[in-house]
């Protein structure tokens, strides 16, 4: 089966750069899957999970991104993310504490961080797309 080359880039470094069988991307208007030969799309992202699958649809890696952009063409998928964590490095207790700390604050930046932290918690707990 064909593969599509996939780059996941954060401002600090290149996180993932390899061939993949399929990628699920948290687009602003909803998740979308990218297979080899996908039509050209440019999308901004909401906080959520980026799932990377191998050729035989086994889950290779799962990441959490806090937002960013995706550019897709038939051969290549590029995600420019703001901050990236691999899902299995996230810790529930840490995020819950972060949510608690942010909950009391009122300014816009804290609110934005709060919604990102909530999305992070969701991402950690949900098991959508783990088997397809």
């Amino acid at each position, binding site marked *: 089966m064909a593969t599509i080359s996939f780059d996941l880039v954060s401002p600090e*470094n290149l996180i993932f750069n390899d061939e993949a069988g399929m990628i699920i991307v948290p687009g602003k*208007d909803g998740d979308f899957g990218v297979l080899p030969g996908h039509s050209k799309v440019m999308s901004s992202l909401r906080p959520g999970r980026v799932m990377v699958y191998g050729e035989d649809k086994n889950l290779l890696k799962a990441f959490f991104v806090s937002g960013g952009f995706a550019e897709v063409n038939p051969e290549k998928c590029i995600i420019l993310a703001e901050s990236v964590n691999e899902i299995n490095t996230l810790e529930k207790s840490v995020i819950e504490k972060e949510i608690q700390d942010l909950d009391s604050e009122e300014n816009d930046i804290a609110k934005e961080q709060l919604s990102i932290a909530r999305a992070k918690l969701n991402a950690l707990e949900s098991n959508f797309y783990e088997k397809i």
Partner: protein
Amino acid sequence: MPSLKDIKTQINSVVSTKKITTAMKMVAASKLRRSQEKAVAARPYSSRLEEMLSSLASSAASGEGIIKLLTGTGNDQNYMIVPVSADRGLCGGFNSSINRETFKLVKSLEKDGKNVQLMPVGKKSRDFFNRVMKDQISESFIDLNVSNSGYDSALQVSNKLQDLYFNGKFDKCILVFNKFISAITQDVTQQQLIPLDVSESSKEVKEDSNDAKAIYDYEPDEETILKDLLPKNVSIQIFKVLLESDAGEHGARMAAMDNATRNAGEMIDGLTLKYNRTRQAFITKELIEIISGAESI
């Protein structure tokens, strides 16, 4: 004629200076390696962001709000110059070349009747411009420490800049920074940050991106993406510049300290020679005194 003790003290002080410069060189070398890695690691993001922007930019007409980052305000009366220097000295001409270049730029803009504001980044340029053109500084950033705090440090600068820009404080923003070429070469570079200068970065891509653009699907839509992308691009460009300047600083310091160590070595050699000669002269003098004393008896 200096006494032996004087020369000895002088030698000792040069020796300890040499120890310091050697140590500083080593430290700079290891920091250089780290910040160089960071600068290289940040490159994919900014280059891909540029690609995306160049394919979008051609579609943007003039507009209000965030699009102004791309199209400009339509004026070029008010300039904002951002010199990026280091927080610390002892790195050769690194800081002074930035200050000199910025100073020249400001003077030539003022000659053309423009208003110029400054937003120095780094202690060395802040201190310099505090002395020479204090009333033109609108804001300054020091101790950003980009190699540790990463992207957030760039965000501080970028948010402030955009804040001022959208309040109509300036029309054009130019960065002056040291571009990292190699460990021993840094190039003073000017880069126009606002409005975005797409013509340069995307000359080659432009031809094929024009037909490529036609078949892109945008989600949610072109304008929303552009609105997200443009502020981010400003931050990323600043981040890139901060990283380059950081790597350049360590490179410049390494080279400067290497020179200083070599000079100290030469100085020690010279002083040791002088010490030995003086000592010999004293011995000879004493011998002559003894001999002539013995002869006279």
